[in-house]
């Protein structure tokens, strides 16, 4: 790593806006975010704070390129490349590569793949791109087991597809899946929402560990105690509410 890596933010958001146009509800326009500007440096945990509907999840989805920005820019420093990637303008292939090697994302809900067991669901991010040899597979499974143990998923569930798991169990599978790789940028949408105190504190430790190895974490933490415990910076999303009448 060069000096610049500690000076330049891992992520820069500038003047970002998001507006939904609902063509089948008479073309109604839903402005959700406006003028979002923020930075996240390596080793930081930035918490997005604001009431329900403030656009917190929307912001994470914009950064992950799951939603398309209406205006503004999102610049991400990619590990394997020297230049920044402008997420709102990048082509599909660059975005896929970014998701492979730079940005990890824990959504509020786990999208289960039928018939794939929990252990494999968790190990998958380590095995994308090409045929995994047996040693890579063994190593991925070892790491997956370690995370499942830390997150208190009973061993009898390890080979069961998570579709039938409880909300909290699914959430922990989702978390394990996202911490199995050392993502330089990690987006967490309410990772502790349905977890008990012990598991909350495990997630907090995982976040600390990710920061310690240089990740920039951006998260939404419903629980104020969790937020205080993990955040190094809190962003008030009310600042980015579109003004009435603006568009």
């Amino acid at each position, binding site marked *: 790593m060069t000096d610049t890596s500690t000076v330049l933010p891992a992520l820069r958001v500038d003047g970002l806006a998001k507006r939904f146009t609902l*063509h089948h509800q008479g073309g109604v326009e839903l402005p959700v975010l406006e003028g979002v500007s923020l930075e996240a440096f390596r080793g930081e945990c930035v918490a997005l704070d604001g009431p329900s509907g403030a656009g917190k999840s929307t912001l994470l989805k914009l950064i992950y*390129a*799951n*939603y*398309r920005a209406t205006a503004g820019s999102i610049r991400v420093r990619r590990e394997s490349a020297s230049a920044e990637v402008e997420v709102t303008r990048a082509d*599909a292939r660059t975005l*896929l590569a970014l998701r492979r090697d730079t940005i990890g994302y824990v959504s509020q809900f786990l999208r289960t793949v039928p018939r794939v067991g929990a252990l494999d669901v968790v190990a998958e991010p380590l095995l994308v791109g090409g045929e995994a040899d047996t040693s890579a597979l063994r190593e991925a499974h070892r790491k997956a087991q370690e995370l499942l143990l830390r997150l208190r998923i009973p061993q009898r569930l390890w080979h069961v597809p998570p579709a039938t798991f409880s909300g909290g169990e699914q959430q922990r599978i989702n978390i394990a899946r996202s911490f199995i790789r050392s993502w330089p940028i990690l987006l967490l949408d309410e990772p502790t929402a349905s977890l008990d105190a012990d598991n909350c504190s495990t997630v907090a430790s995982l976040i600390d560990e990710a920061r310690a190895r240089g990740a920039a974490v951006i998260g939404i933490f419903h629980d104020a105690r969790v937020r205080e415990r993990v955040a190094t910076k809190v962003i008030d999303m009310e600042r980015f509410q579109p003004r009435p009448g603006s568009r």
Partner: protein
Amino acid sequence: MTEDTSPILRVEGVVKYYGARAAVSGVSFELWPGEVLAVVGESGSGKSTLLNSVAARVRPDAGRVSFLTRHEGMVDVHAMSEAQRRLLARTDWGYVHQDAVQGLRMNVSAGANVGERLMALGERHYGRIRSEAASWLERVEMDVARIDDTPATFSGGMRQRLQIARNLVTRPRLVFMDEPTSGLDVSVQAKLLDLLRSLTRGLSLAAIVVTHDLAVARLLAHRMIVMKEGRMVETGLTDQVLDDPQHPYTQLLVSSVLQP
């Protein structure tokens, strides 16, 4: 991680008329190695015509389709000789039909259906052909004991698995699939989708999947194209198109199903 420097397929301005009607009008896209692209849209939107124009099964009225060949770089597939094109279709390409009957030889054994494509590559050793066929039947989760039975005796799901094995045995670099799971019972469909997902991911296959089922696209594809009346009205990452659809037609498609 290595990064490819060229797409495996480039489609430029493809147009195909049936009579006076343009079934496909001016579609362009690129496909990169390892990418799975879904083409969605309602029936009659031109999905299959597009697929067949790209797979060189029909000749477009305008436009160009180039494929990254192993030895000669990007080659216009419609400018190839018929013999070259057939070789390509039997080796480096695969084509999975909606109706397995079209993709299989119904009166020869399962083993021979798979082995046939190996023979097109020059393999003549009977023992090797048979063991390779058996191993592919296993990979598509078929009972190897059925290797000498003909597909005429198989269920729809098994036929589709056999068709997949037949296509993948030559290690193609690009596979075309036209509604690979429709027409099957829901539970059979789910298992087949799982299989396709793990095969495409595991083999880093590039594939184009035509489907009217957004859930199939969600599960299999990295990227998506939405077709309406022969035109591409929207394209993007699969989850972008499904979660934040921009075009009125895409919004209609997405809102007409439960949680694609």
